[in-house]
Each structure stands twice: as structure tokens, then as C-alpha cells.
């Protein structure tokens, strides 16, 4: 059975199943959300108005049998945070269940005329709309539990917390994990506010009895997934007992700190004296000492073989929070001058519950500290921020709007954002390559926009010397294109690690996609397909009013030296403009 598009019109409270138009049939995941947003959303529309849409798409291979680590769901729309196109993706239960219902995407559009909040239930029989008044104001921990109590078959729960209800620009979209906890977020860019603006508090997806995912070429799919699985299981970073398996993403805390690239106290230093206390090593020491339900190997979606997530327990062994990612521990910790992992666990829980992106939230708190509203290191003050946001106090609403809004309210000019979105945990003055990606990606400052793919594997040809700064623009484009492709597959982006070093894995990724979709492609096509996605995103942003002036790092990074290396951001504007010069040069 051919996949369909499920269009849910909240103005009419009507759901329709549509055949996939020819122009979208080759896309999945991020490629599909960006294609639909490019085609159907007016770039000049207000992100919270009636003309924006929230597009939800599983990846190409999601829901297919035994594709490893393939449970990512892409969410797309015009971002309230950046004003540009946005794709944010999440683990959790939603991707495979949407795919197994035979859906390539769900388009959520319109706004309820009655101004009510709605709960939407989707299964093989269709779509039901229910009044969600009794869910309004509730956090996602409670909402997830209520939905599993109400509906059978352990469905996927896609929802927004109070931040999304208030339509604040740092609202994420929550997806429940296999334990029905809300730690999986399509966090960046405020898409939770876009969902809130459609009047939808929660969507529940039950795939029981659905048609499943057909394979166009089972033999090719099987061959590809075996190659990819073998690469993941062989590589030092992703195999059992490897870096991700052992310490999770927070394995990077001590490394980036030793390198002098850990943004500290509002991007004023590259080293934090308390980094070790909030690192993955410290988290794992506590997990092992406390026992109980705590675990350092946790799959954020069914079928993940990397299991970089963890469950952090309270001292008595009961569940505290999942998961303390590196970027989360940095944002709420080092960036705020706080070295207390228990505080970070609590702050992470608060973000999961009320529906905040942790990167943006920690940056907003650091700005509040820079602006004198709080002091660096003030744990109690930082935690009170979450109460303020939950309650919708004036300051809470400002901080819930993100880093730039907080900076404007407090008169702070040192604002670590690009296109309105706050930077993640890698200081671009010390780690210069990522600065190029921060500056130029259509998504705003984003650490996941440019995952490394070696040019010799990506088939882009030519001799690239990464030690030569003049190649940074070309490298960044290659990385961004590869990332756009992987974000379309449904595979976790962390497959980039093994397929960087193991060419068979790279080929296997493309072959598994071809096997599911029937689209002819090999590893050599990955970069060109990724560039098609980037081009749509770039053109949308241009139509929304973005220019090359938006592809710049903050002024203070050009002016201020970052200790301990005492370096400034020195990449020229001309070099940055080279990254996307091809958009208007190529036919």
C-alpha cells in the first residue's frame, strides 16, 4: 500500500488522507518536512499565525524491520525563534508508529475557530478530535502517563508543555520514550509554539493493525542494513563498550574543557573549573553507585543499538531524569557557572516537563546572569526561573522566549546566537570549524547541522586538507549536506561516526534507503541529495528576508579574546559567504 499524507486541518477539525504528490514522493524525514514547508508555508507568514504549519515526518527507513537506530521523527515549520525554516528531530516512539500506519507525513494546519485545546488520536481507523481542556497547564510527565492510562497498546505521545501552550519561542515538542517518559524533544527553534498555535496539546499515535512499511527491494535493504549495523557494532565510538555506550554524549564535557573550547559563564572563557563534576564520567559514577532503576545504557527508541541515553537515578535508586545530554549539562551547568549535577538533573526534569529546549533555556539563564538579574552560580535562582516560566510571570515569559529576548529585556549585548538561536556547547573561537556551520546553516546556531563525513567517503572528490583554513567553507557545506541526508533517513545522526570511518557503512546507509523506497541511490548520491534539501531551506529563508548578514557570528566574538587560548573569531565574511554561493550559481 502506497504511503499517504495525513492532513489535519484544525480550523475545520477535519482529517484527510492524500496520495503523496509526485514532487514529494522521493523525500522522507527532514527532506520531506522542508519540501512541504517550502511548498505550502508562506515564508513571510507569522510563525504563530494561521498560515504556518507543523509538519511531522518519519524518516525513509523508520518502521522498516531491523533497521538499526532508525527511530528519529522530523518536525518542521517556520520557526518562531529564528523566523526561518526549521527542522528539529527527536527519538522516542513516534517515528516508527507513524511510519507503520502507512504515513509519510502528518501536516497540522489551521487554528481552531472555537479557541479550544484539542487532543488528537490517530490509529488505523482514522483521526479523532477530543477537547483537551483537562490537560491544559499540565506538564508532559503527567500528560504522558494520562495518555497511556487512557489508550491501550503503549502509543506514541507527541505533546507540548505549558511553554508551548503560551506559544513561547523556546517551546519544544515532546515525544515519549519506551518507558513513557518525556525526555525526547524536537527541542530547537520553538516548534512547540507552532503546535500550540494549532490548538493541539497532544497527539497520540497507535500503530496497532497498521499496514506497516513495505520494502521496495528487500534484498538490497537487507544488504544495506547489515553493512550499516556491522559498521555501528565495529566502530570504537558506537560499539558496546565504546564511548557513547559507556558515558553517553556527556563524554565530551571533559574533552572539550581540556581543549579550552567549553563555553563558560556566558561564553566568557573556554574552560570551567567544575567541568569534571558535571561530566559523563561523574554521571556514570553516580549511576553505578546508586543502582536501582538507574542505567547507563538506555535506548531512546525501539531498536537502537547505540543506546547512548541513560536514566539518572535519585540517591535512593528511583528514577530521576532521562537524559542528561552533554549539551544540557553544559548549558544549565558550565555556561551558568554551576557544577552541581543534582541541580542539572532537576533543571533537565523541569525542561522536560514544561517543554523547554535545554540549550536555549541554559543560554537564557546565563544571559539573565550576565544582565545582573541572577548571579553566575546561583542554582536556586536558576531553578526559580523554571517556576516563573511555568506560571507565566512576565519575566518567565521573557525567558521562555529564549536567549535574544532575555538579552533585549536586560540590555545585554554579548548574545551568543545566530539567526536568533543560541549556540550549543562548542566555542567557535576555539573550535573554528563549527563556527562556520553555526554561522551558515539555515537552522541558526546548531551543533547537529554539520556532522563530519570524510570527503573521500562522501565522494565529493578533490584533495581536501582540513588543516588548511581556506577549505573550511567547503568542508562545512559537505558536512551540512551529509547531515541533511541523514536527517531524512530516520537513522540517528550518530551513525555518522561509524560511517565516517567505515566506507561499507556509508554505502549500507544509502542502500538501505534505496531498498525501502525504491529510489535509486548509492553512497555517491548522498551529498547531492543533501544539497537539494539545503537549497530548499536556504531559498525559504531568503524569501523570509534573510541575507548574508544573517550568516555571521556575534560581534563580541570578533572583539573579545577567549581564554585560555586568547583567540578571537577571525573567519572573513567573504569566506562565510562561499558556503552557500552555489545556491544561485548552480542551475
Amino acid at each position, binding site marked *: 500500500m502506497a504511503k499517504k499524507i495525513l492532513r489535519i486541518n484544525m480550523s475545520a477539525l477535519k482529517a484527510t488522507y492524500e496520495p503523496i504528490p509526485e514532487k514529494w514522493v522521493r523525500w522522507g524525514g527532514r527532506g520531506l518536512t522542508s519540501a512541504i514547508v517550502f511548498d505550502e508555508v508562506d515564508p513571510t507568514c507569522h510563525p504563530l499565525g494561521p498560515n504556518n504549519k507543523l509538519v511531522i515526518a518519519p524518516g525513509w527507513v523508520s518502521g522498516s524491520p531491523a533497521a538499526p537506530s532508525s527511530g528519529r521523527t522530523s518536525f518542521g515549520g517556520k520557526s518562531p525563534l529564528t523566523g526561518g525554516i526549521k527542522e528539529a528531530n527527536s527519538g522516542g516512539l513516534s517515528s516508527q508508529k507513524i511510519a507503520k500506519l502507512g504515513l509519510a507525513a502528518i501536516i497540522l494546519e489551521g487554528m481552531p475557530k472555537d479557541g479550544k485545546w484539542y487532543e488528537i488520536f490517530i490509529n488505523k481507523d482514522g483521526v479523532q478530535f477530543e477537547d483537551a481542556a483537562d490537560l491544559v497547564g499540565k506538564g508532559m510527565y503527567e500528560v504522558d502517563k494520562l495518555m497511556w492510562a487512557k489508550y491501550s497498546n503503549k502509543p506514541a505521545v507527541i505533546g507540548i508543555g505549558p511553554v508551548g501552550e503560551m506559544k513561547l519561542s523556546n517551546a519544544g515538542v515532546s515525544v515519549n520514550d519506551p518507558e513513557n517518559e518525556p525526555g525526547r524533544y524536537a527541542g530547537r527553534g520553538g516548534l512547540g509554539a507552532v503546535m500550540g498555535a494549532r490548538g493541539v496539546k497532544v497527539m497520540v499515535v497507535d500503530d496497532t493493525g497498521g499496514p506497516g512499511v513495505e520494502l521496495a527491494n528487500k534484498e538490497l535493504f537487507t544488504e544495506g542494513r547489515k553493512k550499516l549495523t556491522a559498521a555501528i557494532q565495529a566502530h*570504537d565510538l558506537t560499539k558496546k563498550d565504546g564511548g557513547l555506550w559507556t558515558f553517553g554524549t556527556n563524554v565530551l564535557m571533559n574533552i572539550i574543557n581540556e581543549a579550552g573550547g567549553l563555553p563558560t559563564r556566558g561564553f566568557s572563557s573556554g574552560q570551567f573549573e567544575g567541568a569534571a563534576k558535571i561530566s559523563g*564520567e561523574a554521571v556514570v559514577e553516580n549511576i553505578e553507585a546508586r543502582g536501582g532503576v538507574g542505567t547507563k545504557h538506555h535506548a531512546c527508541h525501539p531498536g537502537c543499538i547505540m543506546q547512548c541515553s541513560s536514566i539518572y537515578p535519585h540517591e535512593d535508586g528511583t528514577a530521576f531524569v532521562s537524559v542528561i545530554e552533554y549539551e544540557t549539562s553544559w548549558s544549565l551547568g558550565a555556561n551558568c557557572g554551576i557544577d552541581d549535577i543534582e541541580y542539572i538533573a532537576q533543571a533537565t526534569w523541569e525542561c522536560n516537563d514544561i517543554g523547554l529546549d535545554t540549550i536555549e533555556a541554559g543560554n537564557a539563564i546565563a544571559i539573565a546572569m550576565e544582565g545582573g538579574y541572577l548571579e553566575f552560580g546561583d542554582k536556586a535562582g536558576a531553578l526559580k526561573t523554571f517556576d516563573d516560566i511555568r506560571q507565566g510571570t512576565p519575566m518567565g515569559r521573557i525567558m521562555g522566549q529564549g536567549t535574544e529576548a532575555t538579552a533585549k529585556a536586560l540590555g545585554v549585548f554579548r548574545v551568543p546566537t545566530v539567526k536568533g538561536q543560541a549556540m550549543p556547547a562548542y566555542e567557535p573561537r576555539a*573550535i573554528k570549524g*563549527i563556527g562556520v*556551520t553555526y554561522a551558515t546553516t539555515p537552522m541558526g546556531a546548531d*551543533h547537529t547541522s554539520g556532522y563530519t563525513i570524510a570527503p573521500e567517503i562522501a565522494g565529493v572528490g578533490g584533495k581536501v586538507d*582540513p588543516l588548511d583554513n581556506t577549505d*573550511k567553507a567547503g568542508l562545512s557545506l559537505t*558536512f551540512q549536506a551529509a547531515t541533511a541526508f541523514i536527517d531524512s533517513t530516520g537513522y540517528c545522526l550518530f551513525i555518522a561516526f561509524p560511517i565516517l*570511518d567505515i566506507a561499507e557503512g556509508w554505502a549500507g546507509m544509502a542502500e538501505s534507503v534505496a531498498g525501502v523506497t525504491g529510489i535509486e541511490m548509492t553512497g555517491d548520491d548522498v551529498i547531492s541529495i543533501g544539497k537539494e534539501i539545503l537549497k530548499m531551506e536556504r531559498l525559504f529563508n531568503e524569501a523570509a528576508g534573510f541575507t548574508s548578514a544573517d550568516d555571521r557570528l556575534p560581534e563580541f566574538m570578533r572583539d573579545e579574546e577567549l581564554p585560555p587560548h586568547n583567540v578571537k573569531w577571525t573567519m572573513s565574511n567573504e569566506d562565510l559567504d562561499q558556503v552557500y554561493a552555489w545556491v544561485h550559481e548552480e542551475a
Partner: protein
Amino acid sequence: MNSIQVNTSLYGPLAQYAGGKYIAQKSVELKDNASIRDLMDYFGIPYDQKSYLFINAVLCDMPGLLASLDEPLKDGDRVGIFSLQHMWPYQYRDGIRMSETLTETLREHGTMHNVY
């Protein structure tokens, strides 16, 4: 004979060489003109068990390479040594400061791989 103090952090399983579990931070007294080799010998760390190694925030070694053993140390240096269970994807180290020896070594091996 003069001596120097080196502030050393051992991460992951290497911490067990300094009495820790996954993190050990210790100031070590070594002879003047000591090198990274002397520091690792002090703890008894097998050379092939280290991965990333930093001296004063400068990356001096990578997993699978032995580019740092002869790097000289001086009084007050900060050294961080990571285990083979650590990872640092290329995009998050692209453009960081590296020692001359490591830079030359990576030119031979290719800079972008995660392990060598």
C-alpha cells in the same frame, strides 16, 4: 635535582591508575625536564591505553597514535589524559589548537578520522 609539579587529570578507566573510578585529578612531582612518557610511567599507564592527550589545552595526541610521548613538561603544566573509551567527533575538534608534532602526524594519517 630540581623538580616540577604537573596538574594531571585522568579520565575514564585511566582514573584507576590514580585511585579514582572514572575521574582522578592529582598534582604530580616529576624531575626537571620530564616528558609525557615520564608522567605516564609515574602512573603506570600503558602507552597504548591513552587516547586524547592535552597539555595546557593544546591537543597533543589522538587515539591510536603516540605523538605526545616526548613532549616536554614544565612546572605548573596542566595535563589531561583520556581513555580509549572516549570519543571526540571531528566536527567538534575542527580548528582546535594542536601541537606541532600532532599536526605533522595527522598530515600523514589524515585528520578527520576518529581513531587511528
